[in-house]
């Protein structure tokens, strides 16, 4: 089990958003959190990534309590993260965006990211950056483009490259296809599917697009008013009458 959460409760002031959520994600599994707007998906997600502390409950990563662990320590442990609105380093070029992540990982592993006086990335870093960028379809001609000039879809892809450059064991994806054009959306879905096939990484994602969820997720959790309505395999959840009524019914009538 790579990720485990027990009794997560969270309130914003008097408003209780999460009512004792339990979940567990197995190694290599793709786990989706879905639910209508305001169900607490993003809040739960932020509790799991450590951005937003829960009022009570425990989050464990491979058995280790990470509830109060700082962001960078979690990242070093194996958490990779993307954001709803892609967060990249817009003022530096595409190559440097990924190099930053690779170098951060090497430092965290206690290995040298290169010589401090060398303004070029070390050959080891460069090799890895090139491999990632090529794998995710960034043509060599665009590596020196400042990231702020990228389109929304490309930013999402670049953020994905940054997250993968840290070689995470667990990828936390907050709405990986939010705001994307249909073609970008298909591409991202294909990318995630490939990542899953290649293995070695577990994924926790929130997503609005049901087609993507049913294509990718091994298991999913339906949230409604901060409670887990149902958890299980997509086909089983889809058949659940309560779920159909409160959530899926709105889309899949």
């Amino acid at each position: 089990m790579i990720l485990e959460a027990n009794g997560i409760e969270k309130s914003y002031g008097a408003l209780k958003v999460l009512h004792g959520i339990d979940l567990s994600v197995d190694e290599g599994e793709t786990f989706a959190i879905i639910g209508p707007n305001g169900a607490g998906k993003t809040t739960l997600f932020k509790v799991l990534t450590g951005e937003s502390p829960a009022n009570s409950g425990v989050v464990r990563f491979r058995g280790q309590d990470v509830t109060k662990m700082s962001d960078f320590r979690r990242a070093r442990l194996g958490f990779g993260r993307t954001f709803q609105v892609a967060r990249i380093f817009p003022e530096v070029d595409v190559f440097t965006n990924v190099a930053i992540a690779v170098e951060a990982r090497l430092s965290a592993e206690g290995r040298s990211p290169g010589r401090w006086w060398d303004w070029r990335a070390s050959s080891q870093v460069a090799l890895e950056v090139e491999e990632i960028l090529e794998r995710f379809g960034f043509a060599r001609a665009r590596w020196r483009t400042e990231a702020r000039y990228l389109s929304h879809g490309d930013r999402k892809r670049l953020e994905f490259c940054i997250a993968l450059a840290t070689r995470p064991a667990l990828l936390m994806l907050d709405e990986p296809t939010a705001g994307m054009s249909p073609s970008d959306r298909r591409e991202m879905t294909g990318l995630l599917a490939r990542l899953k096939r290649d293995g070695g990484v577990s994924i926790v994602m929130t997503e609005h697009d049901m087609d993507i969820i049913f294509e990718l997720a091994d298991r999913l959790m339906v949230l409604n008013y901060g409670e887990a309505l149902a958890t299980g395999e997509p086909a089983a959840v889809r058949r659940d009458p309560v779920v159909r009524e409160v959530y899926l019914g709105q889309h899949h009538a």
Partner: protein
Amino acid sequence: MKRLIAYGLVLLFLLFATAPYTVNAGLVFIAGIAMTEIIFALSWNMLFSYAGLASFGHAAFFGVGAYTAAVFLKYDYGLHFLLVIALGTFLGGVSSFVVAIIVLRRASGIQLAILTLALSQLVVTLIGYSAFLGRDEGIPSIPRPVMEFGLFRIDMNDQVQAYYFLFVMSLLAVALMWLLLHGYVGRRMKAVAIDPERAAFVGIDVWRVRVFAFTIGGAFAAFAGCLLVPWAQIVTPDLVMWLHSAQPMLATLLGGAGFFWGPIIGVLVLSMVNYATRTFAGLSEVLVGGILLIVVLLAPQGIMGFLRRIVERSSTGKPAMVEEQA
């Protein structure tokens, strides 16, 4: 743009390298001061542009270096001046490390600005209590050092030798900062400056990077302070005052904060304005204020940003998509 910067740098290098033989003594003196201010401004921009920290008390570390050098030269402890510089730089680094540990625990943004400002003014007050450091009057008529290097000696009483000593040391400092900021350390700092939260999520310890940047920035400021002393031969608490802390900020805003070389342009413009208006008391403040107003309103990216816009427009007709390594 890259080529323009290269040409500009060569021109600058030649101007500074030949100054003692091409311009009058007054300008040479100003050129020497400008070199120390360039190091000072670059060290501040290292915090500002590369680590996202706006320190309003950076002059305190400049002061640590300057007073260290002044004490050793004035009271003649017989330490080789290079070692004095090393010591001053080290003390600057240690003091900025301590300040960073205290201040960066919680504060960033406006709290950091106020805290650093308060700490630097505290240093001014402490100097005012110390007869050893000359209280409010400072330490005047500091003798210039003579350095033995075995094969040769540098006598700073000779204006030309003193100038070239400053020149070489400044080049060294600028080169060191350039290399540091363009290597992986600089990339890491830049990541923290752009988006600390994102940086944390790739596993960068934001706090450590900031403490490191603050320490190194303080050390370089102290280095600049050490160099100023044998050249100006006087230190006063003015060097530590907030007004001096504001100099690198003005230079950086003027030259362009997003560019490594921006603060240098800024220092040069400020020095020229000060020189051109030296006979009119108060005029330089008015002019500097006016120029800053124009730059902030018309070219928020500073002179370098303005130049880049012109170059991009004239060469392609649309914004260049290629990142400038400068």
